[in-house]
């Protein structure tokens, strides 16, 4: 246990101090600030166009352009970008060391290969968590500080749902937990490919390509695609949106969480199996 804690600490230090790790934080902060600036400038106008059609039916009162709405929009915007940022770091966790040769440095320590993969995977999860934390701080708390707090008008496939401001914090918390679980699948896929491939670019590109292809399949309502959609992890990665429906489809969300968890187990299992047998010839 002491040995595992030591190598986990090593991996966390390496992940945090790698220059590429900061790119993700910078991108998220920039996108959030950019959207907040745009909405601060033109938000009321845009919202008036959208809600204008509803004015004949509903009487809309209070501050609609609030921090909750901005956070909801930011999260919808970053649905594809967040996994890519996670892949950018986790796809390189082991393959980057193989390519640079530092893997020899790592594998000649007393730690077993299983422990090394687990430590790297956990450091990838820690990075994912930090990315989400930065996203949460900028998208939710900074948005609330700028635009104030109010009821959320959430647009989804079922229509428009209004969620009261005093009923929303737990939903944000749960949404971020599900988002963490979803991104952990990407981190696990990145780690798995990283054990198989010997250069740092291919696993990152493969994860990105997988996410893009799966997302495109998920976008089309076609019978042939409908058959495979339930098996694609990207289908379940957007289940956090269901937390902003009324009533909340709890069974669907739990099923999606189960599928995501299963993906993590499978990807991690393959990573450990493969890495334990891998010959380091580079």
């Amino acid at each position, binding site marked *: 246990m*002491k*040995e595992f804690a*030591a*190598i986990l*600490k*090593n991996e966390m*230090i*390496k992940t945090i*101090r*790698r*220059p590429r790790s900061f790119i993700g934080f910078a991108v998220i902060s920039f996108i959030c600030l950019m959207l907040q600036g745009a909405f601060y400038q033109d938000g009321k106008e845009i919202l008036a166009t959208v809600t204008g059609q509803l004015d004949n039916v509903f009487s809309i009162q209070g501050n609609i352009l609030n921090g909750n709405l901005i956070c909801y929009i930011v999260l919808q915007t970053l649905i594809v970008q967040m996994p890519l940022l996670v892949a950018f770091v986790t796809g390189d966790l082991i393959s980057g060391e193989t390519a*640079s*040769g*530092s893997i*020899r*440095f*790592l*594998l*000649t*320590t*007393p*730690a*077993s290969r299983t422990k090394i993969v687990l430590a790297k995977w956990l450091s990838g999860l820690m990075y994912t968590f930090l990315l989400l934390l930065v996203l949460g701080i900028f998208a939710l708390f900074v948005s609330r500080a700028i635009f104030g707090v109010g009821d959320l008008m959430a647009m989804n496939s079922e229509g428009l749902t209004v969620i009261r401001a005093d009923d929303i914090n737990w939903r944000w918390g749960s949404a971020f937990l599900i988002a963490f679980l979803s991104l952990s699948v990407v981190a696990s896929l990145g780690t798995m490919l990283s054990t198989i491939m010997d250069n740092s670019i291919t696993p990152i590109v493969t994860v990105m390509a997988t996410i893009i292809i799966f997302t495109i399949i998920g976008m089309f309502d076609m019978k042939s695609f409908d058959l495979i959609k339930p098996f694609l992890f990207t289908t379940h990665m957007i289940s956090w949106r269901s937390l902003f429906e009324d009533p909340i489809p709890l069974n669907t969300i739990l099923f999606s969480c189960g599928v995501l968890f299963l993906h993590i187990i499978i990807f991690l299992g393959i990573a450990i199996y493969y890495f334990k*047998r891998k*010959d*380091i*010839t580079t």
Partner: protein
Amino acid sequence: MIRVVLPHTILSPLFSFMDSAILLENVSKKFKDFVAVDDLSFEVKAGDIYGFLGPNGSGKSTTLRMIMSLIQPSSGSIKLFGSSLAENRSEIMKKIGCIIEKPDFYGYLSAKDNLKLFARAHLLNYSKSQFDDLFSLVGLSGRENDKVKTFSHGMKQRLGLAQALIHEPKLIILDEPNTGLDPQGIIDLRHLIIKLNKERGITILFSSHILSEVQEICTNMVVINKGQVVVQGKVDDLLSHENLTVKLEVVHPKECQQLLSQSKWASVMEVHDEKLFVFNMGKDEIPEMVEFLSQNKISIQRIDYRNQLEDYFLKITQS
């Protein structure tokens, strides 16, 4: 009957001296259809410095990587300090330090931070003075806090050596440690290896293409070719001191040729381009010939002999 039981701490140095540090038995490694190492068996005794030689593609690096558990053998057994590597890898790795080919570190971290990672992986808590001593030992004092990406290859080799020594191993495996070192670095490394062996009793398995270094440093050697052992034994036993190729250049070649053609070396002498004298003679005869020439007022410009190990190596690997 009186039975005396001596504490293990008293006996262990004696046994460790007698024991084998590395024992390979019928080890093979196949990469698909290519046999890199073929039924290889050899032993490295604890306390000695072994040269591990072979031409390019002979299986040296694969063998060293198998000993360091970077590559899994296809068959056979590897034992280190009497323990099976397959069964006790973690315990064994605490006793081994290595440089496998070029040492690679994390360029975005300082030299000290890189070593801290390695020390932590070995559950060691190094103090500042311990780090200072280590950096001083490998000749990197003053560069501890510099990022490794600013280091030259030779400096990385030195840092690799510090990393190999950080956990005070009993065995050090050095694969081409001279690569990229300047002449002073090569001399320093040679002295350090000998010092580590003499003062700390560290067993060293040393692979290099600089055969003069191997001859200078190693007490024993193992030569492999095409994945199999060609020869192994003590360096002094394997290298004959007879039949050296000695080359001589003098200020006045004509007078020298006249003199030597009437001497006892006439039968083993060849003259190239009327100025270079090449002899086939024993090492012990060189001082005698030098004295003979100086007595006859022949000024020597150059006298040298080809490295014995080079000749021996070429002979056994090409045969």
